[in-house]
C-alpha cells in the first residue's frame, strides 16, 4: 500500500463527520431539546474545523468556524435550534462538503450568503420551536425496561399453545433477554412429558406500552401466572443483590448476610438455600440486560464513539481476501474429493478438519464484507427531507431493519435505484396534504423503507401510503405506446412490469423529479445486474410497494450442476423451479414444437445440446430443468442433473465478452472449470424461440 495522503484521510474522516452532522441536524428537527444531538453536531463541527486547519483546508476551517460558533451558542442554551437554524446548518453542511471536495473553489458568494443567514438567526432572539407532533414510528418513544415473568398452565401445550411463539412475539417488541427457569421441572419419574413445567423470565426493553406485552398473552392469560413490572435502568451499576431483592426472590437480610462474607454473592445465596440456581441465572441475565441497555444508551449518546473499536480497511483488500477464500474453498473441495478416494483415515480426518475451517473462514469473510443497510437508509433521510420541502408534501420516513446486513458492493450499487424509487414514491405515489385529507388519510404521507433476511436473500421494500397505481391508466398507456397488445388480461404483477419498459411514463406532467420515463428500466437493470428481482404490488387508494429481492453476496452462490454433452454447467439454484424428465415420446413429439406441458401450463424449452453444439451422444433420458426469470419460465434440456454445488463466481475475461449465454465461470471440485448460465438471457432466448414458433404456426 502506498503512503497515506493525509488530505485523503481528512476527506474520508470529514465525510463521516458530515454525515454524523446531517443525522444530528435532522434528528434535532424532531427533538430540539436533545442535548446529546446538539453535542453531537457541535463535536462534528469542531473536528471538521480543527482537522481542516491542520491539513491545510483553510477555507473549510474558516467557514466551519462560524457555524461552530452558532452551535456553541445553542449548546449553551443561548439560542434555540430553530427550524430556520437547522435549514441554514444543512445548507452550511453542503457548503462544507463542497469546500472539502473542491478546495480550490474561489466563489465565496454562496458561503457568504449562508453565513449572513446564520448571523441573522443568531442575532435575533428566537422563540424555541415546538417540536413536530411526535409520530409513533419515527420519534423514538422513550423505551422502558420491563420484567416479565410467566409460567403457563400445565396443560397449555396440550391445548395447543406454543411457548416459543409467545417468546418470539415478545422479542419482536424490543430487546429481550430470555431465561427459562427449570426449577419447576419435577424428577424424571414423576414428570409428564406433555406438561409444561418451565417458567420464563424475560427482561424486555421496549418503546411499547404495558398493554402491548399483555396482548402477547391474550389467549392464555386466564390460566397462567404473569407479572409485568417496570425496571429502573437509569443506573448501569445495579448490583445482583439489589436485583434479586427487587425481584422478590430473596430477602434483604439474606443479601446483607451474604455480602458481609465477601464471596460471589449469587453462589452464596444458592448455597445457603435462599435461592435456586435458576432464579440466580435469571437474575444475572437481567443484570446483564440492564448493563447492555445502559451502555447502548451511552453508545447512542456519543455517536462519534461508534468507530472506536473498528479499523478502516481499503475495500480492495476485502475483495482480495474474498478471492483468496474462494480459492481456498475450491482447493479444499479438491482435497475432500482426493481424500474420499484414498481411503486413508488420517488424510480423511484432516480433509474434514480443513473443510470445516474453510467453510467457517468463508462465512466470516462474507460477514466482514457485509455492512448494515442502515448506512444506506440514513442517506435517504436528507433526500426525503428536501423533497418534502420542494414539493410541499408532508412526509414521514420510517425505516425498519436497518441492522440487516448485505454485501458492501450490493449496498453501494443499490444507492441509485433506491433514490429513484423513493423519488417516484414521493412524487407520484404520495398525494398533497389536501389530497390526502380529502381521501380521509392523515395529511402526512409515509414512506417506509424496510429490509429483512429471507433465506439466502434480502428483501428490501419501499412502501408508500399514497394513491396507489392506476391499473387502467397504465394499461391504456402501455397499449397506446405499443408495449402491450390491446385488451390482454394481465395480473397486477405482470402489468406493473410494464413500468420497467424503457420510455414508459404515465405522469400527467413532467416534473423536475420524475415523469420522464427515464430510469425505471435502469433501476430494473441494476437490480438484475445484482442478480436480484423487483416486483410491484399496489392497492388503489392505499399505496404501492416496490419489493426488491437481492442475493446476500455476489461472490458465492448455490448452484445446480448439470451436464450437457461432455460439458458441465452451473445454474443459479435460486432460478431453478423444478426438474422433470423428458419422456422419450414427448422428446420425439416435441421435435417440432418445443413446448412442454407442466401442469397444464405450456412452457417453451431450449435444447442446450443444440445451443451448445454438443457432439457427444445424447443420454437416452433427457432431463428438463425449469428455470424462471421474473414471471417467465423456460425449460432447459440437459443430459444429466448432477447436483448442488457451492459456486464461487469468477468473471469471464474480456475475450469472452461476446458470449452472452454465460454470466461467469466457476471451478469444480476436480479442478475443472464450469460455466455459469445466464438465466435472464436464456429465458429471453426461449421467449424469442417461442414467438418465432408462434409466428410460424
Amino acid at each position, binding site marked *: 500500500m502506498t503512503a497515506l495522503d493525509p488530505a485523503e484521510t481528512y476527506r474520508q474522516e470529514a465525510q463521516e463527520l458530515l454525515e454524523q452532522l446531517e443525522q444530528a441536524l435532522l434528528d434535532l428537527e424532531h427533538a430540539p431539546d436533545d442535548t446529546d444531538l446538539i453535542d453531537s453536531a457541535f463535536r462534528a463541527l469542531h473536528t471538521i474545523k480543527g482537522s481542516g486547519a491542520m491539513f491545510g483546508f483553510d477555507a473549510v476551517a474558516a467557514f466551519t468556524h462560524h457555524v461552530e460558533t452558532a452551535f456553541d451558542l445553542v449548546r449553551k442554551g443561548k439560542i434555540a435550534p430553530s427550524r430556520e437554524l437547522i435549514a441554514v446548518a444543512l445548507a452550511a453542511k453542503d457548503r462544507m462538503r463542497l469546500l472539502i471536495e473542491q478546495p480550490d473553489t474561489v466563489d465565496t458568494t454562496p458561503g457568504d450568503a449562508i453565513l449572513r443567514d446564520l448571523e441573522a438567526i443568531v442575532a435575533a432572539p428566537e422563540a424555541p420551536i415546538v417540536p413536530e407532533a411526535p409520530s409513533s414510528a419515527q420519534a423514538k418513544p422513550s423505551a422502558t425496561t420491563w420484567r416479565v415473568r410467566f409460567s403457563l398452565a400445565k396443560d397449555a401445550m396440550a391445548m395447543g399453545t406454543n411457548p416459543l411463539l409467545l417468546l418470539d412475539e415478545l422479542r419482536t417488541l424490543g430487546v429481550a433477554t430470555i431465561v427459562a427457569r427449570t426449577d419447576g421441572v419435577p424428577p424424571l419419574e414423576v414428570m409428564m412429558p406433555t406438561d409444561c413445567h418451565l417458567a420464563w423470565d424475560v427482561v424486555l426493553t421496549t418503546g411499547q406500552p404495558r398493554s402491548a406485552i399483555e396482548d402477547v398473552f391474550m389467549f392464555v392469560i386466564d390460566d397462567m401466572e404473569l407479572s409485568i413490572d417496570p425496571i429502573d435502568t437509569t443506573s448501569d451499576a445495579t448490583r445482583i443483590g439489589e436485583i434479586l431483592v427487587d425481584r422478590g426472590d430473596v430477602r434483604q437480610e439474606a443479601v446483607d448476610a451474604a455480602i458481609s462474607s465477601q464471596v460471589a454473592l449469587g453462589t452464596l445465596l444458592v448455597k445457603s438455600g435462599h435461592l435456586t440456581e435458576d432464579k440466580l441465572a435469571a437474575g444475572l441475565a437481567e443484570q446483564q440486560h440492564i448493563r447492555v441497555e445502559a451502555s447502548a444508551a451511552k453508545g447512542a449518546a456519543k455517536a462519534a464513539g461508534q468507530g472506536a473499536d473498528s479499523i478502516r480497511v481499503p475495500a480492495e483488500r476485502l475483495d482480495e481476501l474474498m478471492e483468496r477464500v474462494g480459492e481456498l474453498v475450491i482447493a479444499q473441495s479438491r482435497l475432500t474429493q482426493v481424500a474420499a478416494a484414498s481411503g486413508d483415515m488420517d488424510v480423511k480426518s484432516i480433509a474434514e478438519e480443513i473443510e470445516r475451517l474453510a467453510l467457517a473462514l468463508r462465512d466470516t469473510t462474507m460477514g466482514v464484507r457485509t455492512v448494515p443497510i442502515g448506512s444506506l437508509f440514513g442517506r435517504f433521510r436528507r433526500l426525503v427531507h428536501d423533497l418534502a420541502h420542494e414539493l410541499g408534501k408532508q412526509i414521514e420516513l420510517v425505516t425498519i431493519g436497518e441492522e440487516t446486513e448485505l454485501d458492501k458492493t450490493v449496498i453501494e450499487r443499490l444507492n441509485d435505484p433506491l433514490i429513484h424509487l423513493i423519488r417516484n414514491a414521493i412524487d407520484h405515489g404520495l398525494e398533497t396534504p389536501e389530497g390526502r385529507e380529502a381521501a380521509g388519510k392523515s395529511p402526512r404521507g409515509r414512506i417506509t423503507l424496510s429490509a429483512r433476511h429471507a433465506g439466502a436473500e434480502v428483501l428490501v421494500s419501499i412502501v408508500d401510503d399514497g394513491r396507489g397505481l392506476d391499473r387502467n391508466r397504465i394499461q391504456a398507456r402501455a397499449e397506446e405506446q405499443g408495449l402491450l397488445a390491446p385488451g390482454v388480461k394481465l395480473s397486477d404483477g405482470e402489468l406493473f412490469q410494464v413500468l420497467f419498459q424503457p420510455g414508459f411514463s404515465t405522469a400527467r406532467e413532467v416534473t423536475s423529479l420524475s415523469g420522464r420515463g427515464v430510469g425505471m428500466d435502469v433501476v430494473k437493470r441494476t437490480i438484475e445486474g445484482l442478480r436480484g428481482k423487483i416486483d410491484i404490488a399496489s392497492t388503489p387508494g392505499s399505496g404501492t410497494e416496490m419489493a426488491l429481492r437481492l442475493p446476500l453476496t455476489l461472490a458465492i452462490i448455490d448452484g445446480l450442476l448439470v451436464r450437457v454433452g461432455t460439458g458441465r454447467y452451473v445454474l443459479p439454484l435460486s432460478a431453478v423451479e423444478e426438474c422433470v424428465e423428458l419422456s422419450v415420446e414427448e422428446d420425439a413429439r416435441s421435435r417440432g414444437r418445443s413446448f412442454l406441458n407442466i401442469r397444464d401450463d405450456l412452457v417453451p424449452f431450449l435444447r442446450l445440446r443444440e445451443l451448445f*453444439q454438443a457432439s457427444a451422444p445424447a443420454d437416452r433420458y433427457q432431463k428438463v430443468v425449469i428455470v424462471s426469470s421474473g414471471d417467465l419460465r423456460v425449460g432447459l434440456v440437459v443430459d444429466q442433473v448432477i447436483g448442488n454445488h457451492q459456486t464461487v463466481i469468477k468473471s469471464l475475461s474480456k475475450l469472452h465478452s461476446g458470449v452472452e449465454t454465460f454470466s461467469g465461470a466457476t471451478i469444480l471440485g476436480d479442478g475443472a*472449470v464450469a460455466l455459469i448460465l445466464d438465466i435472464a438471457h436464456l429465458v429471453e432466448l426461449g421467449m424469442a424461440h417461442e414467438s418465432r414458433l408462434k409466428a410460424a404456426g
Partner: protein
Amino acid sequence: MSPWNGGRSLEVLTLGLEGEIFALEATYVREILDLTPITEVPNSEPFVNGLINVRGKVVPLADLRLKFGMEQKPPTIDTRIIVIEVAIDGNPAIVGIHADKVYEITQVAASALEETPRIGMRWRPDYIRCIGKRGADFIVVLDVERIFSMASSREEPPSAGYPSPQLSAA
C-alpha cells in the same frame, strides 16, 4: 541497427507451433504449465474457445494455430500452456496460450533483430513484432498485444489507446 528496443538485446521464450519456431518476449510470461483439462466455451470465437484453471483462477486459453491458419492437431506429450500477462485494449489480463512445444528462454542480440519484412511472410505481418536471427534459423517474435486486442474487439486495427510497436521505422 535495429531501430527499436533501444539497441538492447531481447529476452524471449521460444515455442513451437506446427514445426515453426515462434517467440514471445519473456516479460509477458508468467508461467508454463503442463496440459490441464480444458473447458470449452460454446459459441465463442474459435481462437479463444477454452477456459483453464490456473491455481484457482479461470483463465481463457487461446490457440494461436488458428490465427496462423494452422491445423489443430491433438495434444502430444510436449504440449504446454504458456500463461502470459498481456494488456487487452489497455486492461491487463491473464491468458493461456497453447504451444506444441516450449524450447527455452534465450537472448537475441539487438544486432540480430530485424523488422518484419513487408513481403514474403506467410503470417499476417501485424501479428509479428520482429524477426530474430539465430545461426541459420529465424525466430518469429509475436506481437501478443496486437493479437489479443484484435481478438477481443474483432476490429482492425487497435485504437491508439496504448503504444503499439512502430514497424516502419526511420
